[in-house]
């Protein structure tokens, strides 16, 4: 067996990764991730406001993976037929006393343009503009509309302390790897 974990471990050392998980993400797992990270942050004496922000960003980015990742598997524990889990990576790190949350997952190339437009728009906004944009969009969504309609992405930008960073890397004709990072 090739022992590739050494390289991954080396990579994690540098940006002080506190937590990283790659694989199918479920709601139950998300709750455990939040617990684990909260425990670690409490040990670091992190203030409540920062803890809530980190928690919020982990939730939005993980639920994005659960709902929208192009890489999916059937949920073996679900009682509802057709329930699926999304695959992706979620990582929490700390650098120069700032926390960061990063997620990555596959996305179909055809779904990139609207997402990229939304991310670009939010990226260029001031915190006040992001707040306004969030409230306006929240009002507009109909109960039967899209499950999130980008509200999650805007929420991540609101909770982050600086503009979010994102990237799309082409994997093949069908998919790209979508990576997003928020610094709190």
């Amino acid at each position: 067996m090739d022992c590739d974990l050494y390289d991954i471990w080396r990579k994690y050392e540098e940006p002080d990764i506190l937590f990283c998980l790659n694989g199918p993400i479920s709601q139950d797992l998300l709750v455990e991730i939040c617990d684990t990270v909260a425990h670690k942050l409490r040990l670091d004496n992190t203030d409540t406001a920062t803890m809530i922000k980190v928690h919020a960003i982990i939730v939005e980015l993980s639920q994005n993976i659960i709902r929208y990742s192009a890489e999916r598997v059937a949920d073996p524990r679900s009682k509802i037929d057709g329930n699926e889990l999304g695959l992706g990576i979620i990582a929490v790190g700390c650098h120069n006393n700032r926390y960061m949350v990063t997620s990555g997952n596959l996305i179909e190339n055809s779904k990139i343009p609207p997402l990229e437009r939304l991310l670009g728009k939010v990226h260029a906004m001031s915190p006040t503009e992001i707040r306004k944009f969030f409230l306006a969009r929240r009002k507009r969504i109909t109960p039967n509309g899209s499950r999130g309609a980008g509200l999650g992405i805007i929420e991540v930008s609101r909770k982050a302390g600086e503009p979010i960073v994102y990237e799309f890397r082409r994997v093949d004709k069908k998919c790209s790897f979508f990576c997003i990072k928020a610094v709190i």
Partner: protein
Amino acid sequence: MENILIQGTKYTPDIEFDERRNALKIKGYSYPENAAAFYEPVLGWLRSYLDQAHTPPLAIDMEMIYFNSSSSKILLDLFDLLDQYARQGRAVSVNWIYDEDNESAYECGVEFEEDIQHLQFRLMKKT
């Protein structure tokens, strides 16, 4: 009418109607995968309660520590519903209870308050 009681979990709030005080308490975290499905019984209960002819004033104590963006949408719907009843003259009020250290909870309360016209909505620091 039947009382509502939903036991909280790590990602859904405790929801309980206190009959002696005529107060509906919603307290905890809210980040279920499907927030619309989770809150549907609560909205249904509120409609039935407020549709009754003679009911004492209803107070709603909300102490949300954290909620995700899809819960936020449903909570807005919930306040819209209560606002409509208040406009028709039903006595209903909301106490938005927040912890001093939790600035997000306070800000979210302020944002909901901005959208409300008729409903009595109080921001209350937890003592």
